[in-house]
């Protein structure tokens, strides 16, 4: 598995889409800090852009890479190698490549321009997020053999996590505004990894003061070390579920 992951990573680091993502992250990271003088505002801008783009890029590229490597997968599996080793290698190689692009591309300008705990949290949660979305992409691809259907499905999932989920939360908050539903909203937030990452970062900044009553519950939770540990554990759980799900799918699926 390690050998396959190693060679796939070498291939991926030379891939134009990975290099392009890296350059895009560099442009976003340095560009927004160049435009905005206040480092905390710039951090929030970087966060909003990356939390939207990072899942989209990792989802689409992971899917395309997996489908485009079909014959290579077949070639590997015509040897006495367990299926799980091959899909694990894909997961590791894609995660390493995107982690590299994100950590250097966004992390460097972030830590140099705003060396603060929230930058570190943003960097860590961003990495968790891309591992989760690599896992989601592989989970879908190992279930759906048709490339067009697979990519279509991950796009729908991205739209759900990036926009629709928050819309649903807002709807619930407005409909049941008269009731004390802050804790319910807090729990529901854990169903969306983008929200966990976003709130974990925002709660470390002054912007959290603008979130009203529900914000107070969030600040209490995410603002504390315990809350941070729980939210990172939730992200880790997301990674584990998606990773194990894709391994399970791949072991049982027809190729």
């Amino acid at each position: 598995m390690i050998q396959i992951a190693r060679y796939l990573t070498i291939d991926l680091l030379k891939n134009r889409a990975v290099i392009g993502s890296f350059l895009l992250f560099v442009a976003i990271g340095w560009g927004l800090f160049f435009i905005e003088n206040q480092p905390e505002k710039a951090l929030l801008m970087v966060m909003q852009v990356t939390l939207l783009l990072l899942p989209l890029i990792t989802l689409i590229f992971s899917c395309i890479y997996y489908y485009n490597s079909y014959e290579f997968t077949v070639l590997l599996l015509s040897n006495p190698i367990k299926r799980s080793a091959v899909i694990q290698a894909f997961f590791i190689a894609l995660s390493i490549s995107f982690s590299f692009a994100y950590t250097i591309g966004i992390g460097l300008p972030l830590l140099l321009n705003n060396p603060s705990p929230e930058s570190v949290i943003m960097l860590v949660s961003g990495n968790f997020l891309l591992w989760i979305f690599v896992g989601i992409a592989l989970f879908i691809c190992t279930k759906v053999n048709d490339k067009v259907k697979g990519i279509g499905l991950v796009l729908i999932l991205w739209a759900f996590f990036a926009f629709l989920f928050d819309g649903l939360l807002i709807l619930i908050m407005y409909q049941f505004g008269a009731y004390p539903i802050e804790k319910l909203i807090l729990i529901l937030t854990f169903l969306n990894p983008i929200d966990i990452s976003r709130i974990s970062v925002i709660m470390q900044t002054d912007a959290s003061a603008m979130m009203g009553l529900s914000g107070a519950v969030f600040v209490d939770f995410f603002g504390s070390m315990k809350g941070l540990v729980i939210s990172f554990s939730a992200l880790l759980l997301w990674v584990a579920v998606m990773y194990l799900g894709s391994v399970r799918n791949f072991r049982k699926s027809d190729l």
Partner: protein
Amino acid sequence: MISIKDISKTFGKQQALKSINLEFKKGECVALIGPNGSGKTTLIKIILGLLFPTSGNLTVNGVNIEKNVDYRADIGYMPQMSRLPENMTVAQVFALMKRLRKDVKELDTDIYEAFDIDGMSKKGLGKLSGGMRQKVSAALAFLFNPDILILDEPTAALDPVSNENLKQKISRVLADGKMVIITSHNLSDLDGIVDRVIYLMDGEVYFDKSIDELRSSTGEERLNKMIVKSLKPQLV
């Protein structure tokens, strides 16, 4: 070497293979042919463990392939390589495969050398022509000295010299007692090397005959003419 018993495979409502029973023996060169959608690829994928049969069982050298990967050490597969990691070089593919198959000490580099794989070793897989990919695929299939070779359209994109080299190599491994399964649409390429023809149609074995049987029943010498004559009742 390979024993297929009552293998069926369905995809949704479509039945790709209908209760197939076949035996492949040592030293045989079998042509697995049939029209598109007849079930050739499905059958090969089941042998390789890439598809799971809906029913039936399959043994390779007496070992049931279900939940087993070790049997694949005896198989060399030459796929049609089109979708590959484009930046991985030919040298890296061979290095990776050798690392994965450390157990094999004696490599068969006849095809590797005949096709001058070293000459293209620095090229990325994405930059290879169809013929070059075919050569890489063939060299990998033979590299680990397998007892069973499964060659999927082996001559589709090869130039005449490489085609002849490959046919000579197939004849040599057959003489060594190995078994070869070839799928091909180009029947003239199989002339002189295959000694048994299995014709699949609509997921069933339409006929399974030795070359001698086909020759005597059709009175033809060329494989493509034998097949056409054998199919005539069905075509009419």
